[in-house]
């Protein structure tokens, strides 16, 4: 990516350069967080938070990884922090349940069919869904995902494996129901 080279070559970016780089990556970060959170408004909030953190920490970006990967790492850690905090405070509630079904409602309102697969993905926990998306949509290695999520690669591998198993079981049940 040429922008990544620019950052590593020129060190501190000008205001306009950074703004344009963030604008360019906004969609990518939002779509990543949408797939992970399965909640549009939360994904939007987290994306904005990611962008603000990126501005604060841009001096620490050394260009050793892609700028998009760096942003995804920030978004991942921010989201995991929020999830852990919520868990600590034991506030996974009806509000969260309502949010999940709100994505289904909104997706259908936008003319896209809510498939069994989306339903299965929604049923996974955030910690299961995140490595699955990173591995099978963005193509990161288990080591890279482990670094992003601060987990050993073996744990990431087993989470991806069991998530696939879980979805497959539901999927084959649905398929046999249909036939």
């Amino acid at each position, binding site marked *: 990516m040429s922008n990544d080279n620019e950052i590593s070559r020129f060190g501190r970016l000008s*205001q*306009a350069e*950074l*703004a*344009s780089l*963030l*604008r360019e990556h*906004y*969609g990518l970060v*939002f*779509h990543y967080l*949408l*797939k992970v959170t399965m909640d*549009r408004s*939360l994904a939007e*909030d*987290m994306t904005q*938070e990611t*962008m*603000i953190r990126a*501005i*604060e920490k841009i001096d620490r970006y050394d260009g050793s990884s892609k700028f998009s990967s760096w942003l995804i790492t920030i978004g991942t850690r921010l989201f995991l922090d*929020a999830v852990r*905090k*919520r868990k600590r*405070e034991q*506030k996974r509630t009806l*509000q969260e349940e309502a949010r999940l079904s709100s994505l289904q409602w909104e*997706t259908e309102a*936008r*003319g*896209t069919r809510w*498939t069994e*697969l*989306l339903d299965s*993905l929604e049923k996974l926990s955030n910690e299961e869904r995140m490595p*699955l*998306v990173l591995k*099978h*949509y963005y193509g990161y290695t288990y080591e890279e995902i482990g670094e992003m999520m601060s987990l050993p690669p073996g744990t990431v591998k087993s989470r991806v494996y069991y998530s*696939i198993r879980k*979805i*497959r079981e539901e*999927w*084959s049940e649905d398929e046999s129901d249909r036939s």
Partner: protein
Amino acid sequence: MNPTDHENDNRLVMELQQTWEKLEGTYTVSPATLDVWESLVQEQRRHLKRRLWREVILFWVVAVPLIVGFILLASGLSTWFWILQGLFVIAGIPLLIVELRGYPDKGETQYD
């Protein structure tokens, strides 16, 4: 894992990729104009600079009484040491309260 399992997994992964692509297509994004982003970057950098200066000032506000105190104690001026310590406590408590109140609360509401 037998070949059928492997094939099934591959099929499922492909279906998942298509599902995610569809989801992306459903929620298209139109980011704000470049001017808005530039002002966001400008505002954040300004905010960062302000925070940095505040931290430097706070550091010296804590360090100066300690250094002066040690100098006074070392010179045997214990009365002046206690007077200065008292003054610094009186000045420091309101400053601490202001600082704590100004600290942004990054609670879960921000992500809700």
